[in-house]
């Protein structure tokens, strides 16, 4: 008997029970098991293992199921809220970008109009007005970068948040 035959027998035994085994293979296995005690023992062990593993039932308690369902519901609600918040933030960002672009364009146009009215060179007034419009944001950004501490003190932040909270109530 060759190793190949044992391997084939073990392969077929392993597949048995769940996978479909061809009739020819099943017949060959039966003839092999009749003369090979090792493989016959393996087949018997596989059967015993299956019976043993299927003999004991493990059941989930109703409390466990109810807890799992409640946690899944709570998490689903949480995820839904996060999703809604993310959509709101995205929409706010888009509106912010759009309004900034439109106002920048309007300020630029205003610079051109002012330059025309005052007979000044547009190439200076237009960028000048634009920079003046941007100046507060630039100053704050530079101050924040330059300062090692937060520009807004924690107490100020808390006070602002408190006012907002108070305003809501």
């Amino acid at each position, binding site marked *: 008997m060759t190793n190949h035959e044992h391997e084939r027998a073990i392969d077929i035994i392993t597949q048995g029970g769940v996978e479909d085994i061809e009739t020819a293979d099943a017949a060959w296995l039966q003839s092999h098991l009749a003369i090979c005690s090792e493989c016959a023992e393996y087949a018997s062990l596989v059967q015993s293992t299956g019976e*043993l593993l299927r003999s004991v039932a493990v*059941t989930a308690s109703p409390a466990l199921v109810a807890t799992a369902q409640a946690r899944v*519901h709570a998490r689903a609600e949480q995820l839904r809220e996060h999703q809604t918040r993310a959509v709101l933030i995205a929409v706010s960002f888009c509106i912010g970008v759009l309004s900034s672009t439109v106002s920048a364009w309007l300020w630029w146009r205003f610079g051109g109009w002012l330059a025309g009215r005052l007979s000044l060179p547009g190439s200076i007034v237009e960028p000048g007005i634009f920079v003046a419009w941007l100046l507060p944001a630039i100053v704050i950004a530079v101050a924040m970068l330059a300062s090692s501490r937060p520009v807004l003190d924690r107490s100020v932040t808390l006070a602002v948040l408190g006012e907002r909270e108070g305003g809501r109530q």
Partner: protein
Amino acid sequence: MVATAFSSLVPMETEEAQIARGLRRRDPDLLDALIEQYQHRLLRYLLHLTGNRATAEDLFQETWLRVLEKGHLYDGRNRFVTWLMSIGHNVAIDHLRKRSPSSLDEMKDPEDGAPFEPEASDPSPFEVASARQQHELFDAALSQVPPLFREVLVLRFQEQMKLEEIAKLIRIPVSTVKTRIYRGVMALRPALRGGTQ
């Protein structure tokens, strides 16, 4: 008649496809139904994987939370139970990594004497005694099997999964699944022979 003609043209949506669609929507009713349907199988798998009832119950809940979060990744092409077990497998592995034990067996509480429960259906005293004996035999035999082999044995013989499904679930080749089954069965041999004598 129109409906009949239409249904003959459009293939019926499979159960897996319906589940995939519901999971993408994070449908709570579908999840409730899935938890009800697969509660015992999932818990049984996690229990055999960890060997500890309390840990298995924690991982059971974590698995369902992950099903909710990763539900959009299920494409409905494979059986849902296979995907569910793979999620359970990953949750258990993550749990192990957090605790960093050297093997799954370290998760087993030595004082946890009865992690496996028989079905509650008012059994007779004889059935109780018999079940307890089977219990002890089962627990003792299975505890001797290394976790890697125990997992494939449970998936194969309890969950009746195909070799390809197990391979996909654990992400190992089919040949390795066969080897693990063989080694697992052979590891059970002393206990099985002892129990039958």
